[in-house]
């Protein structure tokens, strides 16, 4: 039989819950309401009793009796009105806050150490979020991929891929981001721009903020004198005016009409791209599409097509499309195209560096957690009696654990908020430390992910450091505490075992972080002592650019730079000047693709590759390159009749290890009449061999280098000027800005900087990583030292009486001092040992970040434990001194 009782249905329950929640926000008013209602009840009853003839006092007593316990009813009523669980938490929270307030030293230490940990983590997470996690500003950006090989594609190849590939909804090509002279608005300036195929904006899926984008007509030569501006350039140069559309600007001497403006936030292909021009085809010319190898591919994958399958298709198409070239291409050209997601391509090798930083900073947070756990353990010990009494009075174990956990959560929350502040404050400094070529540097900022991260990090850490003391305090052993008077479970019974383990763990983790930082520091030190192979002293460089169209007048560019060098040599404060096409260590190299005498080549094989530099004859002496064989270039070689070139030692040895390289011939493939056809009549003749340079970067190995004179047929509109002077770059800039226009008013001077600066910036990424890791290492050590100090201080405090007895029994103060110090050093040695074992295991992962040192570098692996030992002594010094100065009489009398 089922008796259905008057019961609540779901709606009733819902209304009840809503009511209860609402009541939480007006508890005070509701309390007053209830009080008044009950008072009115008693009054009404009293009144009725009076009417029945009772005396006033009898009437009131009778009314109260009939009512029952007023306080009890109020209590029941209140419980029923609100949410009891919530109120318990609320009470615990208030209690926790009072606890923190009562011991400000503990609260500040705990919150600050944790805030530093959370803050450092949040800061690094902000970088990861902004650089790696946040999507690029294109719709369905996860479908965008780059199609790349080692080199570049001609526009004909991109067109062939567009026509034959089935993996993409849209496929485009974009060129290198290079600087151009832009005139036609105010003054002339050097501005970064790129050329893109006309469908690029469709591939990206973006619409113009103003005006329009390219149409397919703009891909025909003659129709291509148009330009699309980046949002930033439009805002800076045209003050964000809509009048800009339709205006004409001159880019490298070519007049182009402004078609439209890209939407804000779009940085394509690079962060500093300020305009794009269309890639155009010469109508009906079958050879033109295949000449310039200057594009990379970007495509939007069809739904359901993975980058891997698109890549497989690209590799299939390669053989099929190669015959489209009007000449026989080497098989190895583009034989391994790779299809990578655009975001991955943009982030590049920054990801592993961020992961390394994040790993280090997580360890710092763990160390901070251990610290706070220890502080809480120490604090909990002083509250043992409180807890014991509570549980003796019937508090459930669950309640005690939850009370203590809520106290931890409170510390975590305070630390989280402070940590966010720390992260926010340090973000600016952080972006300054990062190398300027860090991807998406401008996007770095706090987004909601970061707040979520800080929240989760602080809650998780609170649980991590709160659980140990909470479980310990609620353990049944505690009952003995009451029985055994003032002896403490944590202090005596467990002999600080948990605390010591935590401190050893802290030291071990600090050792891991500081060892990593040490290895990177050693690498950086090694890098800074690499001889680049050229002298940088007192050399200032500047880029000088004529309009790209200037060289159409043969000899004009060559004559301009020759004239400029002569002029500069005469300037006050300038000792000497030289010219080079590309500076070493700037990432801009000119590839000299060639065939060499004695190395016949099948047309389907690739030619040889060296780094070429067009130089003025005094470049060698200027850069301090030593002549090893033959002769250097002279001014007379600039006529081209001698066909003289100079090569590096590395190139000479790899080409002709057992022969005299002087007089050998090398031929640029551009001068060949057909692929692999070696014609010594047209080839350059090697007249000298010079010493090697680390021209790519300090950490790279020597490569093949070719030095060529600046000829009329190889002249370029942009060259780098080298100046030897006592003056710094800042003072040379006005001199250059004065002299250069006097030779040609259209020429622009940019990038004035010392050669030292260029060399230093080639290791900027290693330096940034080292600086950050050292910072985190210092943080880890600082927190670790606080940990050791507080534990030792706590132990000393706890053992005051024992120390007093020892002193009374004749122990010397020195013995006490060394005893305490030894204890600290023992912790340090155990921690260092554990840390070094972990560091050794982890060191292999660091290999790619290190330069010419063994991941298990003996110096670092010895220095770190010594440092830890020193720190252990420093951390224990104050408590040890205090222990040694204990007055035996006072110690024995106390407690």
């Amino acid at each position, binding site marked *: 039989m089922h008796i259905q*009782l008057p019961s609540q249905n779901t709606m*009733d329950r819902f*209304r009840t819950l809503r009511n209860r929640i609402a009541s939480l926000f007006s508890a005070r008013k509701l309390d007053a309401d209830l009080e008044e*209602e009950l008072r*009115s009840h008693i009054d009404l009853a009293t009144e009725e009793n009076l009417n029945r003839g009772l005396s006033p006092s009898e009437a009131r007593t009778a009314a109260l009796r009939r009512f029952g*316990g007023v306080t009890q009813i109020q209590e029941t009523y209140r419980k029923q*009105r609100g949410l009891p669980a919530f109120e318990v938490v609320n009470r615990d929270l208030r209690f926790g806050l009072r606890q923190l307030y009562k011991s400000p030293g503990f609260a500040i230490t705990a919150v600050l150490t944790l805030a530093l940990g959370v803050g450092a983590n949040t800061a690094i997470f902000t970088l990861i979020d902004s650089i790696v996690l946040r999507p690029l500003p294109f719709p369905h950006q996860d479908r965008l991929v780059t199609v790349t090989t080692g080199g570049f594609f001609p526009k004909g190849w991109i067109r062939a891929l567009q026509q034959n590939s089935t993996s993409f909804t849209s496929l485009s090509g974009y060129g290198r981001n290079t600087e151009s002279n832009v005139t036609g608005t105010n003054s002339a300036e050097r501005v970064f721009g790129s050329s893109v195929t006309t469908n690029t904006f469709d591939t990206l899926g973006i619409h113009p903020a103003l005006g329009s984008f390219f149409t397919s007509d703009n891909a025909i030569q003659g129709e291509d004198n148009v330009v699309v501006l980046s949002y930033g350039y439009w805002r800076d140069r045209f003050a964000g005016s809509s009048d800009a559309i339709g205006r004409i600007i001159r880019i490298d001497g070519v007049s182009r009409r402004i078609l439209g403006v890209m939407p804000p936030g779009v940085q394509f292909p690079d962060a500093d791209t300020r305009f794009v021009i269309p890639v155009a085809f010469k109508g009906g010319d079958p050879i033109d599409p295949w000449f310039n190898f200057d594009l990379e591919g970007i495509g939007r994958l069809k739904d359901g097509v993975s980058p891997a399958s698109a890549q497989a298709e690209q590799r299939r198409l390669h053989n099929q499309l190669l015959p489209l070239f009007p000449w026989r291409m080497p098989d190895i050209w583009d034989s391994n195209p790779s299809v990578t997601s655009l975001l991955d391509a943009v982030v590049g090798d920054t990801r592993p560096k961020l992961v390394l930083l994040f790993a280090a900073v997580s360890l710092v947070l763990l160390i901070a957690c251990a610290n706070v756990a220890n502080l809480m353990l120490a604090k909990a010990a002083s509250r043992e009696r409180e807890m014991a009494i509570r549980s003796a009075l019937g508090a459930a174990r669950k309640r005690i654990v939850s009370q203590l956990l809520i106290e931890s959560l409170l510390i975590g929350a305070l630390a989280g908020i402070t940590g966010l502040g720390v992260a926010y404050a340090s973000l600016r400094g952080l972006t300054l430390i990062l190398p300027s070529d860090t991807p998406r540097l401008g996007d770095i900022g706090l987004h909601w992910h970061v707040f979520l991260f800080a929240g989760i990090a602080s809650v998780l850490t609170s649980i991590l450091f709160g659980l140990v003391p909470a479980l310990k305090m609620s353990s049944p052993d505690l009952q003995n505490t009451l029985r055994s008077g003032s002896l403490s479970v944590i202090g005596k019974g467990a002999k600080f075992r948990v605390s010591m383990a935590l401190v050893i763990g802290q030291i071990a983790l600090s050792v891991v972080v500081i060892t990593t930082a040490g290895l990177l520091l050693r690498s950086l030190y090694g890098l800074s002592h690499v001889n680049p192979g050229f002298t940088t002293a007192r050399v200032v460089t500047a880029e000088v650019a004529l309009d790209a169209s200037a060289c159409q007048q043969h000899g004009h560019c060559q004559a301009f730079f020759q004239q400029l060098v002569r002029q500069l040599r005469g300037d006050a404060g300038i000792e000497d000047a030289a010219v080079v096409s590309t500076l070493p260590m700037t990432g801009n190299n000119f590839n000299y693709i060639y065939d060499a005498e004695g190395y016949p080549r099948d047309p389907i094989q690739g030619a040889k590759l060296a780094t070429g530099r067009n130089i003025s004859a005094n470049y060698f002496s200027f850069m301090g390159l030593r002549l090893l064989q033959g002769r250097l270039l002279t001014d007379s070689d600039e006529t081209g009749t001698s066909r003289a070139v100079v090569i590096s030692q590395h190139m000479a040895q790899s080409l002709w290890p057992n022969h005299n390289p002087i007089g050998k011939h090398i031929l640029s493939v551009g001068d060949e009449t057909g692929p692999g056809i070696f014609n010594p009549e047209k080839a350059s003749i090697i007249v000298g061999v010079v010493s090697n340079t680390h021209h790519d970067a300090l950490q790279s190995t020597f490569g093949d280098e070719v030095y060529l004179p600046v000829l009329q047929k190889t002249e370029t509109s942009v060259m780098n000027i080298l100046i030897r002077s006592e003056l710094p770059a800042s003072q040379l800039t006005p001199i250059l800005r004065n002299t250069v226009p006097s030779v040609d008013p259209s020429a622009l001077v940019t990038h004035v900087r010392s050669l030292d600066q260029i060399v230093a910036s080639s290791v900027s990424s290693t330096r940034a990583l080292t600086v950050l890791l050292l910072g985190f290492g210092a943080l880890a050590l600082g927190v670790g030292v606080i940990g050791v100090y507080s534990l030792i201080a706590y132990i000393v405090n706890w053992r005051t009486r024992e120390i007093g007895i020892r002193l009374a029994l004749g122990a010397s103060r020195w013995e006490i001092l060394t005893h305490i110090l030894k204890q600290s050093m023992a912790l340090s040695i155990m921690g260092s040992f554990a840390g070094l074992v972990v560091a050794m295991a982890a060191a292999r992962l660091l290999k790619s970040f290190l330069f010419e040192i063994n991941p298990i570098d003996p110096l670092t692996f010895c220095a770190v434990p010594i440092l830890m030992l020193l720190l252990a002594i420093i951390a224990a010094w104050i408590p040890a001194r205090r222990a040694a100065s204990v007055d035996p009489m006072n110690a024995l009398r106390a407690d």
Partner: protein
Amino acid sequence: MGETKSDVLQGTLDLMVLKTLESMGPLHGYGIARRIEQVSDNALSLNQGTIYPALLRLEQRGWIKSEWGLSDTNRRAKFYSLSRIGRRQIEMETENWERVAATMARFLTPSQ
């Protein structure tokens, strides 16, 4: 908010309150308590205070609503009245109780 073993008793009191409000119209807590005592002929001598948790329960469910007003003797008091939901509920609750009572009656009357 789990229901406890006193649910049966709570339900009785709830229904008494609802029925009182149905027959008497808006009434303050004291009035409801007195009315229940009178109807039960003082047989049910409850602590009058227990009426308040019952009133709160009914109000939280939205079956009754309350309003401050003046009593016959010009005293400020909180008056309770049935809500629309409450009115509908009475019928259902009454049915339930009649069934329970009938079942109990069958147990209690000796079988013939």
